[in-house]
């Protein structure tokens, strides 16, 4: 097993309490940063670490921080994006639920680096009970002098609040999140200006994912250079992977970036292979938005090299033969799975979650769902495949925010790699649905 920096205390009972977390080395980064480092030195360590945004985009965190405008007399904000909603992704929930203080610690250290004195954790509304767990951790941190005025006797003060959303995938997009935090509909803003210049209440703001912020604590503790030694190339450090679907051991795994995909799927240390002795058919490696790949392309690149769990290796071959690490939402499908039906659930999802602001996305996602419904009903024609291809191409790159791209990519990839499935349905005028609950539990329907 590789190094663990976020879930290393996963086995410790009551690690969700301040006392136990502190006894296991928690809040060391707050002490180190506030007492021995300047804010810029903290940012420098994050830059050196090579840490990349763990929400999905993979943008270098230190660079994002360095864009933050710092005009005199204007408050700056750090907002944690805990609006985890990408289908297949549940790592942030796991981290917050079991290790709430890891996020609180990361928020304090990161807020110090950015010069923020009020910070918010925006969490999706459905995780209401997780917000309760975070609020309890924050109360404990205040009581211990880790939050509030003059933290640890220094001049630095910080207030930290949890904000619950109302159920909208789009609020994971950072400008939609800020709109929502201001009490509005989650409509993404046109950029520029970027949040680093005009974010929350028009003030300079950094928005970072839960896992990204939590990773700042070990980076400060061990130093950015040490952190950068973990992983391969520009994929430094560890990453939480949410593994689900037809595998023996679904769950959240912290991996050192660089683990071979084959090992991740079949090793007992991770997913433990495919359920019920079935063969694997396809994998969605980084959340619903990223291209689905058939078994041969997820295990090996088009050049025949073993595919690794890194940003670069998963993207090898571009969208023709590769995919993306994305959010780390790793969905595995066995040989009895219909890629067409899986795509239908994705198109329904994006149609439901489109905010309706841009026509290509608002109209296009609905249109794609309708065409996919024809395949499920067995009424589709072969020309509907071309229609789908045409629609997705007219959404991609033509919207204010990346939801349009996220809706288009899975459609393109399913057609690219599994076109025969679509053709078969169109030719036979019949879709053979699989009742997965009965199948997986060896039951016959009553």
């Amino acid at each position, binding site marked *: 097993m590789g190094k663990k920096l976020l879930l290393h205390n996963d086995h410790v009972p009551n690690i969700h309490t301040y006392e136990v977390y502190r006894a296991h080395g928690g809040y060391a980064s707050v002490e180190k940063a506030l007492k021995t480092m300047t804010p810029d030195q903290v940012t420098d360590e994050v830059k050196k670490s090579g840490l990349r945004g763990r929400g999905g985009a993979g943008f270098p965190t230190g660079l994002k921080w360095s864009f933050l405008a710092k005009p005199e007399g204007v*408050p700056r904000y750090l907002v944690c994006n805990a609006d*985890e*909603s990408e*289908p*297949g*992704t*549940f790592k942030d*929930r*796991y981290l917050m*639920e*079991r290790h709430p203080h890891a996020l609180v610690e990361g928020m304090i250290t990161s807020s110090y680096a950015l010069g923020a004195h*009020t910070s*918010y954790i925006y969490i*999706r*509304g*459905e*995780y*209401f*009970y997780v917000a*309760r767990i975070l609020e309890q951790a924050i109360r404990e941190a205040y009581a211990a002098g880790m939050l509030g005025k003059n933290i640890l006797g220094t001049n630095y003060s910080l*207030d930290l*609040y949890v*904000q*619950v*959303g*109302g*159920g*909208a*995938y789009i609020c994971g997009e950072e400008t939609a999140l800020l709109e929502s*935090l*201001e*009490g*509005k*509909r*989650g409509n993404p803003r046109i950029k520029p200006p970027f949040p680093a210049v005009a974010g929350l*209440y028009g003030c300079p703001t950094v928005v970072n994912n839960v896992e990204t912020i939590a990773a700042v604590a070990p980076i400060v503790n061990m130093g950015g250079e040490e952190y950068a030694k973990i992983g391969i190339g520009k994929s430094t450090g560890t990453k939480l992977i949410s*593994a*689900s*679907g*037809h595998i023996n051991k*679904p*769950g*959240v795994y912290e991996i050192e970036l660089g683990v071979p995909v084959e090992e991740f799927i079949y090793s007992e240390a991770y997913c433990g292979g495919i359920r019920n002795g079935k063969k694997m058919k396809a994998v*969605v490696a980084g959340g*619903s938005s990223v291209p689905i790949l058939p078994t041969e392309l997820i295990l090996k690149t088009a050049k025949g090299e073993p595919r690794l769990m890194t940003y670069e290796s998963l993207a090898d071959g571009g969208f023709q033969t590769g995919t993306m690490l994305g959010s780390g*939402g790793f*969905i595995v*499908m066995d040989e009895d799975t219909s890629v067409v039906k*899986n795509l239908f*659930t*994705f198109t329904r*999802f994006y149609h*439901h979650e489109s*905010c309706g602001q841009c026509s290509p996305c608002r109209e296009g996602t609905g249109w794609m769902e309708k065409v996919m419904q024809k395949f499920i009903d067995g009424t589709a024609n072969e020309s509907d495949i071309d229609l789908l291809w045409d629609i997705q191409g007219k959404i991609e790159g033509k919207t204010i925010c990346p939801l349009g791209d996220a809706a288009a990519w899975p459609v393109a990839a399913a057609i690219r790699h599994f076109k025969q499935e679509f053709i078969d349905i169109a030719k036979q005028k019949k879709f053979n649905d699989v*009742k*997965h*609950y*009965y199948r*997986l*539990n060896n039951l016959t329907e009553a």
Partner: protein
Amino acid sequence: MSTHAHGTQNFDKAKRATIKFSDEIMAQVQEIIKRYPTGKQKSALLPVLHIAQAEFGGWLSPETMDYVASILSIRPIEVYEVATFYTMFHTQPVGKCTFEVCQTSSCWLNGAEDIVRYIEKKLNIKVDETTKDGMFTLKTVECLGSCGTAPMLQCGASFHENLTFEKVDALIEKYRSENRLRSYTDLDYNNTL
């Protein structure tokens, strides 16, 4: 909803008078408003709507939304547009227990559709319908971040995961006997992580 078309002034005054937070809840609301800079109290809208929905019957009536607008000193339309945008806010009455079954990829791969059909049969309702006794509403929702413990449903604050038909039976029986409104803001959540 049709009442929107008539504007706010036509609502039943007697009905509106019953929409009022208790002192205790009002104190909570005031604490929430303090989280934001002066003049940015609109930021409290989503948290306060959650509380209002839990306090006033599990849904947001026009009267409830107007009341929230008055507390936050914003226009009613600013509340309506938010309440109708987010899926967790119900602008029509729902049952005391709303079963929200996740149907996206990983849950579907693990049999969410069969769970939905089972609940439909068991409660004798279809998706988006409420049982005649007002006890249960069935909805399908998109990914709730429970993919590794699929299939699942949310009811109020609780996630019910690794669902089986037997677990669904037990849940229905338990909730029916407890016979109370389940809200996202409930403190007695259970989770299986």
